[in-house]
């Protein structure tokens, strides 16, 4: 059988997504409540950010609007993981109960099939909120605008999202090797809260960790420097698309390897 094309997967995803949204909308109360919840989460996040800045007008040479830019950037970069890869949170239970096996009987990519099952609509609010924040701070910083900047922005946002997706894949796949693996995913998820700060405010140990071990600095800090401080872009920023691709690929391989291994020996 020939390999299924990207177009094939795209069509399948669209179909599942459309059906899923339709069925979610039909539970209207549920839908409204989760939308309101989503707005509150974002507003609360913003307020705590704002309060912080009432006390420290500038952190390590980073002004309010620059910080806001990072904040918006990170919110957008964290959207795809929320929308498209949320099923990673269910992986552990599926594996534990043995239900994971059901994903293995289809003639399509296992990772795709598993992730396609859940689309988390809450991510969209986060995206809009992030976009608003980004445009506002962009404007206030007077960064100017050009097609090239927009292109850079898109490329670096995509690589930033890939880093978070990769982190989550890797963390989720821990359940293939150990029981009680929830803390791994939970830990990574908490780590992402630090992504919205410039990595320079941390001590050198954490700077190293956030760059090379749990590379959350690639979720907002390194990529946004390209737009924010075009005169002093470090090499790591330019490398972030490659880092993202490699990291994503490795996390995907790890996830698939774990899935195969689990079938062979698992619970």
């Amino acid at each position, binding site marked *: 059988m020939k390999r299924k094309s990207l177009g094939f997967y795209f069509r*399948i995803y669209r179909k599942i997504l459309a059906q899923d949204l339709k069925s979610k909308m039909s539970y209207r109360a549920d839908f409204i409540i989760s939308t309101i919840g989503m707005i509150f989460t974002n507003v609360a996040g913003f307020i705590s950010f704002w309060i912080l800045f009432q006390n420290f007008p500038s952190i390590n040479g980073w002004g309010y609007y620059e910080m806001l830019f990072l904040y918006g950037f990170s919110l957008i970069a964290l959207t795809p993981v929320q929308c498209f890869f949320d099923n990673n949170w269910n992986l552990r239970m599926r594996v534990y109960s043995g239900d994971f096996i059901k994903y293995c009987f289809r003639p399509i990519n296992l990772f795709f099939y598993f992730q396609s099952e859940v689309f988390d609509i809450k991510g969209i609010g986060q995206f809009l909120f992030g976009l608003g924040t980004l445009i506002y701070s962009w404007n206030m910083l007077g960064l100017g605008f050009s097609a090239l900047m927009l292109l850079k922005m898109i490329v670096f946002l995509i690589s930033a999202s890939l880093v978070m997706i990769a982190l989550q894949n890797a963390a989720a796949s821990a359940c293939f090797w150990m029981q009680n693996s929830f803390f791994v995913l939970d830990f990574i998820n908490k780590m992402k809260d630090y992504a919205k700060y410039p990595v320079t405010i941390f001590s050198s140990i954490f700077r190293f960790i956030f760059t090379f071990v749990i590379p959350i600095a690639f979720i907002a800090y390194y990529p946004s420097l390209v737009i924010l401080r075009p005169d002093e872009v470090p090499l790591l920023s330019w490398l972030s698309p490659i880092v993202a691709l490699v990291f994503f690929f490795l996390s995907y391989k790890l996830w698939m390897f774990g899935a195969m291994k689990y079938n062979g020996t698992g619970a």
Partner: protein
Amino acid sequence: MSNIIEIKNITKEFKVLNRREGLKGSLKDLFSRDYKIVRAVDNISMNITQGEIVGYLGPNGAGKSTTIKMMTGILEPTSGEILVDGCIPYKNRTRNAQNIGVVFGQRTQLWWALPLVESFKILKDIYGVTDKDYKDMLELYQSLVDIEPLLHKPVRQMSLGQRTLSDILAAFLHNPKIVFLDEPTIGLDVSMKAKIRTLIHALNKEKNTTVILTTHDMGDVDALCRRIVIIDKGKMLYDNDIEHLKGFFGYYRTLKIRVSGSLSETAEKIAAEFPEFSVSANDEWISVLVDEAKSTVMDVLSQLQKTYKIRDMQLEEISTEEVIKKIYEEGVK
């Protein structure tokens, strides 16, 4: 006739980790070498031809699901060879998946939130079923069961029986060469069981689909399969026609009755009346294990009715465990 499935001396062993408690334990488990070996399938061989319905029988933990998992390609045999439609399943998992349909009883593979028909449409795309074949298949389904009320119902609102029925229909949808049904009737009531058996029978007839049916319910086998394969503790005990098995020790059914009056006293009287059958009593029920080669359950029942006032009755198929016990005792091959 050519074999659609060929299995030669397959064995599957699992390495089971002796797990430790707690967070520290689960970290230690990552590096642990503290294994024990479980042999789930032990040197099994069989050939299956296109269009057969094979009853794969055995008590819990016998190794039935493990065998199925090897045939579907999600497990690699520890040793031995396995060919499904000419290819090695675990080396060609996705290709093999196109050729087969799988139902693991009680674990739906359908989209939980979607109405059945939407699941069908997605499956149609995944398997590349043509519009015409899809339409024909739905018409066939319509003629076999009343699917209209199911089609627009989200799977999560279905009863277990409806869900199993839907899963079976979904497994046949792309007209696969082989359908594996792992305990499809487990936990279902009598009428749903009958409905599902009829459906499987009709689909096999109509499409000449090979069906491998795993069960520990003799009723399923009796209704559907000419050939049965019995395994226990991973080892093959029997592979032959069901008639052949019946020929060896008759066909047993348990007649259970509830009568007015003293339980043990009546049981003793019945035992004296039918010395050829074993009679036992517990929980208000008197059980008579009837060998239908000697006389039918109906004869026994009408005989009993003449003497006793029967308040309630039940009929039970002989259990797999009893069959296996008999095979061990009497050595049927």
